[in-house]
């Protein structure tokens, strides 16, 4: 049962982690850690109502820990580490990836909480109520925070739009 949860959710949890972290390798490590922590709860008889939200919550906490740990590392350093190799899909050419990279760098520049909200909403396609459930805050609060985060992101990604 536990491994079927891995089969169902590992892809999206990884995508969330890879969006939030500077290295895809670290994202893989935290993916494994996410499921190990979830397994410990499962093995002790815990059965979260919403497994997906529960996994996201663990992953989110791991990312927060990671940010705390790397607080002293400069952002430039973190962004430098981001490996963007040649696309494996020829359809996804370099200009396509350049825009993607810009978006990722911009998300990495946001404060941790705002980056998390943007990733959940726009990368993980979670709706407001799901995000609220993962983060343990109200839907209204989530909307407000997300709105602020998106405004900041717009300024970073499209500074001329405001002019």
């Amino acid at each position, binding site marked *: 049962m536990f491994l079927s949860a891995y089969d169902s959710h590992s892809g999206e949890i990884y995508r969330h982690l890879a969006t939030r972290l500077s290295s895809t390798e670290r994202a*893989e490590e935290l993916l494994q850690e996410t499921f190990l922590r979830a397994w410990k709860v499962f*093995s002790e008889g815990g059965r979260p109502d919403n497994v997906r939200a529960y996994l996201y919550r663990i992953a989110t906490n791991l990312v927060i820990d990671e940010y705390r740990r790397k607080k002293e590392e400069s952002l430039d350093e973190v962004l430098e580490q981001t490996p963007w190799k040649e696309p494996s*899909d020829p359809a*996804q050419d370099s200009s396509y990836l350049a825009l993607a990279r810009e*978006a990722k760098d911009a998300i990495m520049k946001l404060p941790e909480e705002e980056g998390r909200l943007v990733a959940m909403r726009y990368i993980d396609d979670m709706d407001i109520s799901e995000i609220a459930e993962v983060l343990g805050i109200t839907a209204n609060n989530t909307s407000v925070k997300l709105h602020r985060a998106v405004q900041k992101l717009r300024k970073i990604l499209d500074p001329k739009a405001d002019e």
Partner: protein
Amino acid sequence: MNNFEKKLHNLKNSPHLRLSSDRSSLIRSNLEKIISIEESLSRPSGFSWRRILVPVSSGVVAVVLGVVTLGAEASVPGDVLYAIKTKVNEPIMGAIARGQEGEIAYRAKMVSRRAAENEIIAVRYEKDKEKKEVAIKMLNKSLENFEEHARLAAESQKQSVAASYAAQVEAVMESHQNIMATVSPKDSQKARAKSVVRKEEDFSEASSGEFGLMSAAPVGSAPAQDISAIEVNDVSAQEEEDLSETEIVLLKIKNQRAEWETNISSDNTPSVEEGAKRRVEYLRKKINKSSGWEADFLKRSKESLDLALDLYSTGSYGEAFNLANNAIKDIEFLERNERSGRSLKVEIGDKEGE
């Protein structure tokens, strides 16, 4: 779709955010391994007569296995239980290692365990050449594995992790050398003498004449090869500057391994006398080539050389070797710092303060 949305859309569909099926399978298989190990180690929860009464025999087996497993931990190559240590206990430790950092930590631990086995054998089985050879081969193998993983880590943006563990392994090996020098001074001296002879061959060729301070070649007649190139075999000073910290440490470990391999395969080890002679000669060359040294440091180095020569002339070859060797290490410490652009004065002060 505006520019903002397009960028996010591209990111969302970027191949970099997709977990490849082989990586996914690898992580899944890691999880399965860890879960199965942790399940087998976890205690049954809740009370059940069945759990108490039925597996009495299993319990006995488990106790026996536990004792065997623990006993195996103290075994060394050639012991009956050694296979359990290396084929059961250690692979379990390896399976629990998580991520690249876990893996490299595990490999470093294996080096430490193999070094400890060599030390035990040197004490317990002093005359058992076969055991010694197997233990050295095992140690070399563990170093080889460590080097491989450290290199992989360094290549995949974990230079600091790789460097940190490489430094740990280097420290383990240094301490191992010291222990071996204490418990098996004869082997240790021979091994060191041999490696020194190999490293300093070029000097010997360059400096004809008899051994001794009086026969010192003038400063201007330096050998064709740079002194610093001899410390890290086959790597010039310039090349060394281009290497990362991890690579330098790994190279040193590799050289050490090569020396041991040579020791195993050949009985043609030079005498301690020869080793001491070469080492003192090497120290003399270093002093002759000194430039930009603090006056105090130069004075101390010369005193060490004089004393080493005295010891050599009175037949105390081991002591002469050690004295010259320590002086050379100090000099090389300075040279390394000089190459990395740090202040010699500060480093000397730090070192003295230690």
